[in-house]
């Protein structure tokens, strides 16, 4: 699917913003070598994965306010059962965690299709259920993971190749094939108009279940990457809510229209860099990180506002 001119401009301006922020950040640090690059990539992996999952769901005309909780749940499951284990066990739990996340996503999609209740309400409720499960499994901060397993995510001492792979593999292996597939196109179709999609022979209910399942796949990857990177889990609603907000912000910033049917996953992945840089750069100046929440909220509103105005002008 070719990007429209508007989307290309949008992605280019986000890329420009990312470059400016990268230069800014690199000036803050005494050295800007491969270790620093690695830290940045590790910082954005969870945000980017979650943002991609959320963006896909928004493209398909939905929204998942439980996506953060889903990632935290998988984080708790994998961190709890991989603690002090060997490589094979960690890998097995990571895979199982991703499978669970896909199932959770599919069930969410099924409930939304079957019940006819709005996405917001269903996922607001499931976010509570999922955090409840996470607390069940891991009542407080803790857990761990096999270090050899974690190496595949965090890489060696100074090499940022492994994290870079972790960041780009989902785009290459999931998004690119999906985008061209029948399923991917039907995501865009139900996102633009459910009725039109239905009339052109798309099974809307089944597509929606797959949509949330693929979203769950990204959330599961995010959970596993959190386990590998932080080597721990913390089952708190605050964290999952912030993660959800970040994912929506990154989607919006990345050019995904909330009405559905418009956008891609590259933009949100880029945008998550912006969301990572705002608090990091502010912390670098010794500013209370609470301010970054204000800036991020304001930025999200601004982007939606400008995006809406541009679209309104484009129509005229």
């Amino acid at each position, binding site marked *: 699917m070719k990007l429209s001119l508007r989307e290309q401009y949008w992605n280019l301006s986000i890329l420009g913003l990312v470059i400016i922020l990268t230069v800014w950040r690199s000036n803050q640090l005494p050295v800007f070598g491969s270790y620093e690059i690695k830290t940045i990539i590790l910082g954005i992996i969870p945000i980017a994965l979650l943002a991609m999952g959320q963006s896909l769901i928004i493209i398909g005309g939905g*929204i998942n306010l439980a996506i953060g909780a889903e990632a935290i749940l998988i984080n708790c499951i994998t961190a709890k059962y991989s603690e002090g284990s060997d490589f094979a066990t960690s890998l097995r739990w990571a895979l199982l965690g991703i499978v669970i996340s896909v199932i959770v996503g599919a069930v969410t999609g099924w*409930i939304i299709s079957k*019940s*006819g*209740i*709005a996405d*917001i*309400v*269903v996922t*607001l*409720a*499931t*976010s*509570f*259920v*999922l*955090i*409840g*499960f*996470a*607390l*069940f499994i891991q*009542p407080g901060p803790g857990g761990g993971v096999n270090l050899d397993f974690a190496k595949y995510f965090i890489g060696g001492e100074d090499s940022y190749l492994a994290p870079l792979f972790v960041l780009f593999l989902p785009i290459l292996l999931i998004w690119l094939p999906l985008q061209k597939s029948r399923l991917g196109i039907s995501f865009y179709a139900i996102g633009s108009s459910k009725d039109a999609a239905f009339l052109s022979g798309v099974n809307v209910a089944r597509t929606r279940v797959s949509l949330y399942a693929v979203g769950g796949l990204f959330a599961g990857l995010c959970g596993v990457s959190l386990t590998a990177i932080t080597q721990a889990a913390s089952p708190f*609603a605050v964290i999952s809510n912030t993660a959800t*907000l970040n994912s*929506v*912000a990154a989607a*919006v910033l990345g050019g995904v229209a*909330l009405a559905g049917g418009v956008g891609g996953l590259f933009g949100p992945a880029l945008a998550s860099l912006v969301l990572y840089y705002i608090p990091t750069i502010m912390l670098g100046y010794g500013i*209370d990180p*609470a*301010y*970054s*929440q*204000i800036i*991020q*909220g*304001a930025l*999200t*509103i601004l982007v*939606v*506002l400008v995006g*809406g*105005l541009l679209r*309104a002008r484009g129509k005229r």
Partner: protein
Amino acid sequence: MKLKINRSMIALWIILALTFLVTGLVDSYFFSIPSIGITLQLAAPLGLLAAGQTIVMLTGGIDLSLAMIATGAAYIVSVKSESGLLISLAYALIFCVVVGAVNGIAVGVFGVNPLIMTLSMSAILIGVFTVGVSTFLRGSSRMPDLLITASSGLILDPITWPLIIWIIVGGFVHFSLTRTGFGRVIYAIGDNAKAARLAGVKVWQVQIAVYVSCAILGGMAGIMLGGQSGAVAISLANSYLLPSVAAVVIGGTSIMGGMGSYSGSVMGALILSVLSYLLATLNSSEAFKQLVYGGIVLALAWVYSSISERK
């Protein structure tokens, strides 16, 4: 249409009666007058939050910043209470009006998606108050005594001051929605904003008014919550965000707007309050509570939507 509403209301009464009976069977003390008084007292702030959420959702919007508005209003009242009760309440009112107006202008004038607008507003408010606690809003986190009485004072078992306030304010909301032009315009916008605009309704003005009213109702609820807990913390109303939406949805207001009533939301708030009493008596872990709460909200919304679909 009339018949459908009655049918849904009957279903809500049955659900309320069932949760009431089950709670009473689990904990026989629940049937005593003082515990009913407490349940009603705790339902009052949720009822006010649901009132705000109902008005916004009837226009097809949603206010996810409501919990932070409530917390903020309570926080401002407690910190400014040294300079007098009325002044502190005035500060809180200004805060609510400003936040509500910003939400309303963004949604009504600039067409920002309400979900994103209020989610971002919530993040902004969390940031502002986190910073404020140690800088410009430093001070006592204790609520003034008069407000503590107004939020939890007993008049005659099981009637409490917050219940009276809820009945008065809720009655006013119900009256405005059903008997005034403002209420009719709210339904019209939720049903079809374009048609309402073409019919001469200034949609943006109504939307600003709606978000401001919602914020003021949220502020009242926050002050009540603050008064019930005695002191204000930054997480005061956090756990009330889902219930405020859930009460409205269970009560049969469509999230797409244009359909529903505040009386339904009141039933929703009562059902959820009895439910949290039940969960509290079960003496269960936080994990279990969250799980059951989310599950039941989902189930109730599902039951409700399938009942009202069957004509």
